[in-house]
């Protein structure tokens, strides 16, 4: 578990804190989506989870290790993998397998184990056929999956991703999101993902919304993403499906269920037409 208790953070030289009194527990194996407008403190928050930044006040405790304690830093970084939006900034080697091996090599693992981890990580992201490919010849979505494999090869319990799909086209976004959902379900890796896309947040177990450095909402996607007025106050857009369900209810179809997925809504509307 990652326990974030009473955390505030202020960048040196700046007067106002970026995060205020954040309290949050992230459970092993959960899929958490973090939403918020630009400047809401999301990126800072992700960097506190693996000790890249240390809170100004409060504590971040990862499986019992406090990120304040420098002697646990390596252990914490292994438990909590961090991934950024632009895959081009995160790939270091000339061929895929060397890139994925970079992390485990730095841990000083025996060669046989490195090989095993590289192969496992690449098949976990569906890129096992690209072992010998140069990363720069791959698509954006494929590159980001290689970057994910590079983190995965360190066998983290938690994977923190800061807008992993914002640089990708729709196909790449779908690939990466599906990869993360599979990892979460099959390997039990906890996923903590920052995103601007409400449709992606709908795939999570839990949604947390940050605004002006504070947690303003927390709950299941359906609970949080249907609060249309609040969402626009927080600088976010409600999913189009939710807005449509609201409009239909306003027109007297009060039994239309709130749903985030167009197929569910289509199904409900079709049932209406059968009853009549």
């Amino acid at each position, binding site marked *: 578990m990652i326990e974030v208790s009473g955390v505030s953070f202020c960048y040196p030289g700046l007067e106002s804190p970026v995060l205020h009194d954040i309290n949050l527990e992230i459970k092993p194996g959960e899929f958490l989506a973090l939403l918020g*407008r630009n400047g809401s403190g999301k990126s800072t928050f992700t960097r506190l989870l693996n000790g890249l930044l240390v809170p100004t006040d409060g504590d971040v405790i990862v499986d019992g290790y406090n990120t304040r304690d420098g002697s646990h830093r390596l252990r914490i970084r292994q438990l909590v993998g961090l991934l950024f939006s632009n895959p081009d900034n995160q790939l270091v080697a000339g061929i895929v397998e060397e890139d994925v091996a970079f992390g485990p090599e730095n841990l000083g693992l025996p060669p046989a184990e490195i090989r095993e981890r590289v192969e496992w990580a690449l098949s976990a992201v569906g890129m096992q056929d690209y072992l010998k490919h140069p990363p720069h010849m791959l698509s954006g979505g494929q590159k980001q999956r290689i970057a994910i494999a590079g983190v995965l090869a360190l066998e983290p319990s938690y994977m923190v991703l800061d807008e992993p799909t*914002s640089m990708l086209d729709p*196909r790449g976004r779908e690939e990466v999101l599906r990869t993360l959902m599979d990892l979460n379900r099959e390997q039990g890796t906890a996923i903590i993902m920052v995103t*601007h896309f409400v449709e992606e947040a709908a795939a999570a177990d839990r949604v947390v919304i940050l605004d002006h450095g504070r947690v303003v909402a927390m709950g299941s996607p359906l609970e949080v993403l249907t609060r249309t007025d609040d969402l626009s106050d927080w600088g976010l857009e409600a999913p189009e499906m939710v807005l449509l369900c609201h*409009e239909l209810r306003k*027109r007297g179809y009060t039994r239309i269920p709130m749903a985030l997925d167009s*197929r569910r809504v289509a199904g409900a*509307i079709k049932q209406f*037409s059968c009853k009549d």
Partner: protein
Amino acid sequence: MSIRLVQVGFRYARGLPWETQALKNINLEAGKNEILGIIGPTGSGKTTLLQLMNGVRHPSEGRVLIDDQDPAVLKGREITRLRQKVGLVFQSPEDQLFANSVYEDIAFGPRNLGVTGSELDHRVRWAMEVLDLDFEDLNQRRPQNLSGGQKRRVAIAGVLALKPEYLILDEPTAGLDPEGRKVLLKLIRKLREDLGMGVVMVSHRLQDIMSTCDRVVVLDKGEILRTGTPREILQHGRELIEIGLHLPPINLLLNELKDVFPHLDTTLLGPEEAADEIDRALRGLW
């Protein structure tokens, strides 16, 4: 006055074994006072098409004419002057901000064209005003310390300060948060309405294209599949899905309802219009 492409084809790596035909048989006109949207799946040739439109690349077949002049046959100062008419804003243009102040970054382009003194100052102020960037507040700030949306607008202001007549934007809203996206799309419409510019934009977000553009071109495998108003294009929702595009969720839903309500209008934009149409369908009012 327009950018005109006549029977244009483009091949990468001409004459090499891995020669690829990126575009073929392209006939297209982008006028002033118009916002033209280009959509198509990854690899359909969108970016290549944009690069042909301002003369960064020359076609392998056919001709590109910018206000009736062909950049492929012009030389020296003339080509510089012609390219100046067409501003090109690349993807994530904020990656190219480099100066220590917003002012210097925007002034860089016009200064290289020999603009100096009060004319230069005037251009920087004008470009910032058009892009809704407060001059007093922002002109001496470091670009790196601005928000994502502001950075992107500073980068676009740097192109606008060259006083182009056409502006070409590659994925202008990618990576912005909803607020930043809304602001930028409004400004793009302003470029046409207030300045009469010709705007060409590529986006993967069909919502942005359909709500902003006057006319839309659909590219698939290097060829034009269809041209029309946003509504005309949305009538072919299933075709768009087949070539790998992602319809806005509302239009996806309307297309899914089509088997029960064959007369349903699938081209509507926005939840209110769609809810009215579904209401009409459910009450059998046609």
